[in-house]
């Protein structure tokens, strides 16, 4: 029973990565109507930027949490301005293909310069060590990841669902022409939204840097799992993707305990089951 609690908690940690990433995907999808295949690569860039900030600029983890998402977010906005925006009006699949190409380029370049085995990033001093919870030894850093990403997820939800800016965003998704008629610069909003989604991916990257090696391919496999998460949850609602992300992390954690052999396939199997029962996904509207 104690072991089970420990696994649940560990599952929540992975869930927070799924939640942050699928949230970013949902935000981008809502506004640009494309699936950002480069999301995994940008997540990886976030981790690398944190590494560079520390090793080249001596800038610590805390600043990296703020700066890396901004830097990668700007990079994302440049991508949107120079490439993605030309796809407006074309079939959505072109967005998928374009971002897939971008992902290959980014991952390839990083692999060329930094090899594949990865670079180390140490846990910040303030978050070293662990707490004995009675049923497990919880590294402080892991606890921090869960709490922090939960806060970020809820803040994003609040921003989009409850603020004036979010209202514009949602309105621009529904009817861009009308919103433009109200004097709002829709293209700029699209760019900023893409930057926001990408920034969330980069933030997840910074959070994962001290846990995993900083590797060029760290996002490549993860993104496929996140796609499955997105299919399960549907991209209709922000809250939906947050909840599904955390929930799937927990389910995966439990699988690791009861039947570890299936722990990397369980998300995909769940996706199949959900599709059979409810083809639109758990929270999504029909696509």
């Amino acid at each position: 029973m104690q072991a089970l609690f420990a696994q649940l908690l560990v599952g929540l940690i992975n869930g927070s990565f799924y939640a942050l990433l699928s949230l970013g995907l949902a935000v981008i999808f809502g506004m640009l109507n494309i699936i950002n295949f480069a999301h995994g690569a940008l997540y990886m860039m976030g981790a690398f930027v944190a590494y560079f900030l520390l090793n080249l600029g001596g800038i610590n983890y805390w600043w990296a949490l703020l700066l890396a998402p901004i830097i990668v977010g700007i990079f994302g906005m440049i991508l949107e301005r120079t490439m993605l925006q030309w796809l407006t009006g074309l079939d959505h699949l072109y967005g998928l293909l374009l971002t897939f190409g971008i992902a290959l380029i980014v991952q390839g370049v990083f692999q060329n310069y930094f090899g594949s085995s990865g670079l180390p990033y140490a846990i910040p001093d303030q978050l070293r060590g662990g707490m004995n919870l009675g049923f497990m030894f919880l590294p402080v850093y892991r606890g921090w990841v869960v709490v922090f990403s939960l806060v970020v997820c809820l803040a994003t939800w609040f921003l989009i669902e409850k603020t004036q800016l979010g209202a514009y965003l949602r309105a621009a998704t529904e009817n861009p022409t009308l919103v433009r008629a109200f004097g709002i610069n829709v293209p700029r909003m699209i760019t900023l939204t893409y930057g926001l989604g990408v920034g969330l991916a980069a933030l997840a990257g910074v959070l994962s840097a001290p846990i995993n090696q900083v590797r060029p391919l760290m996002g490549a496999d993860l993104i496929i799992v996140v796609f499955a998460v997105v299919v399960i949850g549907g991209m209709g609602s922000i809250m939906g993707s947050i909840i599904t992300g955390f929930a799937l992390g927990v389910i995966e954690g439990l699988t690791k305990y009861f039947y570890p052999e299936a722990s990397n396939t369980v998300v995909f199997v769940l996706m199949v089951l959900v599709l059979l029962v409810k083809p639109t996904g758990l929270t999504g509207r029909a696509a």
Partner: protein
Amino acid sequence: MTTLTDDTLPTTPRAVRDEMIVFVMMALLLAAVPFTGVYPFFVMQALCFALLACAFNLLIGYGGLLSFGHAMFLGTAGYCSAHALKVWALPPELGILVGIAAAFVLSIITGYISIRRQGIYFSMITLALSQLLYFIYLQAPFTHGEDGIQGIPQGHMFGVFDLSKPTVLYYVVLAGFLAGFLLIFRIINSPFGEVLKSIRENEQRAISLGYRTDQYKFLAFVLSGTLAGFAGALKVFVAQNASLTDVHWTMSGEVVLMTLVGGLGTIFGPVVGAFVIIAMQQYLAGFGQWVTVIQGSIFVICVLTFRRGVVGEIAHYFRRSL
């Protein structure tokens, strides 16, 4: 919304005749390969991928469905054929049949699941399904994990053709490719193909005309998956091994790239694309990871400026469908 393919081009009996002429020219050119200095092994490999890309193109170019998991059919057929040939010691023709049958069954199952969602969801689902299969093959004992199934006997096709002779093998693979290609050609120009195209253009209209569009799409998916399996089975004889590479998502990505470069929804585009990409892999092997970067750049360039692909551009220039 602009669709993925160039639809301003006519499909008249004359166009079909033109396509047949190009087909015969292509067949003759390929048949002459062993008499030139070109390394036949390379061409055989490219032919297998060309068939795979054609099968993929049937789904995207004529059904409007972008599958990001076509490697699963290639790999499944490859593993099953390889197992049948090596462990059950079946003759080549039966080995190929086993592979095709496996891909057929797989495409029925995955088609049933994935066809429930459209557009990008469909792409994500096929990608996730192929990743699921990748993990299953990685762990399944009969695939031998990352070692793969090695040293597959080539044997005698129909008891006559000795496949261990490169020239014989070449013509067998070529025959297989041409047969598969003709079948796809036939499907596209059949009434079934016409309905598919109309669904791609406007699904609502097709539904209102009384077509059960899901069934058409499902059928297209199964045909495409099975033909991709045929390519996988042929590839076993060329590579003499079956490995995880063929089920990995990067392979699915390469198939998409081949078709995109050649021209989505063109008949000959995937063949051209496959040759271009395989040649690139071969000759750029020394560049290491830059190959990935180059592939990615081609994706980006194609999507931004060259959406019709090589054959699509040519076809557009001559105002012919190719």
